[in-house]
């Protein structure tokens, strides 16, 4: 997602300066998706060009570094854009490349990988992340800003939990596959050599030469 829509949504509250937009964004989402102030100003310039925001009159000043400071407010078109964002679901596009899923898919097919150890190590790492998110969640309070932050944390918590469940599932499937391979190997060993009384198909040249 571009930060464009998030900034527009924040301006719905009141006209704001660039640095203020950044502070408000991070107050709601924590340091989960850090936003640099340069990115905020570039985006605002683009939004102004597209007619979605405009300079708000009054209260102009200068920042310590001499850079001119401008407060922005939404235009009518900007307001429509925010309304549209909040009334439509986020599109489920092509899933992003997931390094973990790709790694496991390759680990079960590339020879010589200890898949069990890989899954175990990953689960420990994911569990550690989940513990960290939970630690932060325990400290989140009850104000509105805390609600926003706490819901962002919940999103991370549920995603980590889903990842751990998936790793458990992978482990079960991999172990079962290994067992079944073992059993097939055993039964194949038990049936050879084939009983001589059983009618056998004409061996191919290759097999006959074995």
């Amino acid at each position, binding site marked *: 997602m571009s930060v464009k829509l998030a900034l527009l949504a924040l301006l719905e509250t009141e006209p704001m300066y660039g640095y203020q937009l950044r502070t408000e964004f991070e107050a709601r989402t924590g*340091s989960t998706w850090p936003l640099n102030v340069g990115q905020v100003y570039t985006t605002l310039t683009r939004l102004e060009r597209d007619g979605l925001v405009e300079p708000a009159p009054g209260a102009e000043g200068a920042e310590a570094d001499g850079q001119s400071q401008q407060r922005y407010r939404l235009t009518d078109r900007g307001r429509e854009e925010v309304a549209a964002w909040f009334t439509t679901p986020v599109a489920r596009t092509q899933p992003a490349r997931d390094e973990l899923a790709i790694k496991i898919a390759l680990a079960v097919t590339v020879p010589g990988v200890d898949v069990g150890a890989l899954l175990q190590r990953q689960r420990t790492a994911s*569990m*550690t992340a989940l513990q*960290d998110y939970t630690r932060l969640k*325990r*400290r989140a309070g009850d104000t509105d800003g805390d609600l926003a932050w706490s819901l962002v944390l919940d999103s991370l*918590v*549920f995603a980590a939990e889903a990842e751990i469940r998936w790793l458990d599932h992978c482990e*079960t499937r991999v172990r079962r596959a290994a067992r079944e391979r073992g059993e097939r190997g055993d039964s194949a060993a038990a049936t050879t050599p084939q009983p001589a009384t059983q009618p056998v198909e004409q061996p191919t040249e290759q097999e006959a030469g074995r």
Partner: protein
Amino acid sequence: MSAVLRLSGVTRTHGTGAAEVHALQGVSFAAHAGELVAVMGPSGSGKSSLLTIAGGLDSPTEGSVEVEGVDLTALGATGRARMRRTSIGYVFQGFNLVPALTAAENVALPRELDGESARAARSAALAALDEVGIAHLADRFPDDMSGGQQQRVAIARAVVGSRRLILADEPTGALDSETGEEVLRLLRARCDAGAAGVLVTHEARHAAWADRVVFLRDGVVVDESGSAPVERLLDERPAR
């Protein structure tokens, strides 16, 4: 940190000969004062065996179990029962409250069984109910309470008096996610106040409330997370 619970080389075997099943194989494990430890693992991994042995409800085939320095395996049935009344609190998935007793009577029960006067036991029970935020429900019967309230009574019963080891077996299993979280918050608070807790759960989201998470498979501890300080992935929310 002193270990409130210490299992050393615990093996539990059921049956003999070809039917022999190892529920636990050489498990060593400790829970210290102020610490909540979660135990995770698939069904049949030995999670519940570990908890019943830690709580003196079952004895290991081999190895020792110490609670506050007392070796449970060296005690007889009477001695273990006394330890359960004085040192060990148990919280079950199904609450296990006595339906004919009020909340306060349920919580006072272990104290009274231990020989405390009814009056002293009731005042300890009221203090424990207050700690879990339901002092006002002291005279209700379990059937007149929600699942979350009943589990709070069960937690009060587990912590009443000065018991310092709390063993919880899927305590959130019968509760919705928000009520479940309240239960974890209470367990966590009790451990932060100096008790040692062991939480058996199959839900990673709940295990994450613990300081350490121990993974069991086929009766063996296969891994542990959080034994090293938890890496901080995110900073605190910036102040406004």
